[in-house]
């Protein structure tokens, strides 16, 4: 494994045509379906459509990570993956935390709702 890396001046992962094409074909499919779902108004329920296209985006991000960015558990002695996992945790906290806090702030502080409930 490290033998194949050493031939290419350092520690760059070896890419293959097959790997890139697999990633590309999967990406095209995973991009086309969400666009089709939204533009063709396929699923009538908005919330359901949003969930489905978010799911497709998550899968496509993983596909890009594996086939284009060559992520795995052993490049750079695992430090690449560790940094990625750490970042993913922070990204999740930043996104979910912001949405959660701001949603409740909005709901509880809206003047209109104060009148309704108070």
């Amino acid at each position, binding site marked *: 494994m490290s033998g194949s890396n050493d031939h290419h001046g*350092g520690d760059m992962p070896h890419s293959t045509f097959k790997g890139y094409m697999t990633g590309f074909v999967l*990406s095209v499919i995973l*991009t086309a379906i969400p666009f089709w779902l*939204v533009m063709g108004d396929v699923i009538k329920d908005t919330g359901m459509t949003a969930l489905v296209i978010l799911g497709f985006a998550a899968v496509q991000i993983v596909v890009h990570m594996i086939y284009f960015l060559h992520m795995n558990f052993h490049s750079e002695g695992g430090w690449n993956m560790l940094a990625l996992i750490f970042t993913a945790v922070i*990204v999740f906290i930043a996104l979910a935390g912001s949405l959660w806090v701001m949603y409740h702030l909005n709901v509880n502080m809206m003047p209109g709702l104060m009148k309704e409930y108070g």
Partner: protein
Amino acid sequence: MSETTHDTLAGNAERGEPLQFHETTEHHPETGTLLGFWIYLMSDCLIFASLFATYGVLGRSYADGPTGMELFDLPLVAMNTSLLLLSSITYGFAMLKMQANQLRGTMVWLAITGLLGAGFLGLELYEFNHLIHEGAGPWRSGFLSAFFGLVGTHGLHVLFGIVWLVTLLFQLKKHGLIPENQRRLFCLSMFWHFLDVVWIGVFTFVYLMGVLP
């Protein structure tokens, strides 16, 4: 595993030979550039996370202004997405040519990647210009501020990627596929694919979810 190492060490010491250490883990990379660049990308990812969070919070604050459903032109976005996706695969081809040590092929695919990136940027600028002329500039509402902030930051990244790519074309022309240039090409490839990953988030979270009622 550790026992055999001990035996070897003890054996060497008894025989009066210098101690030899065998690395049992993968060898340490000669330079930390690729790991360092990856960590830069991860920190860049956090910038985008905060912009996505801002958009998530403000994305429906229209201030009686135009909504995403009225503004977003999905065929244009689909066009933009395909340009960026194509540029990812053409960069992949450039990397394959680099591995095969073919300078000319590397430069040709790199130039094609740059042109696709420029096309993406052109369409994005056209869209921004169109929005601003419709009175839907970043000052119009919280939604549009967050939109221009997020999509504009991504566009700026693509712009700097293209500047870097053109610089590398000159470097390649001058020095050929020396190890330094191979390393630079690899770093740019990570940067370029990373931008494509961010764009997946943008077209899903901003455009596709933005036109949903």
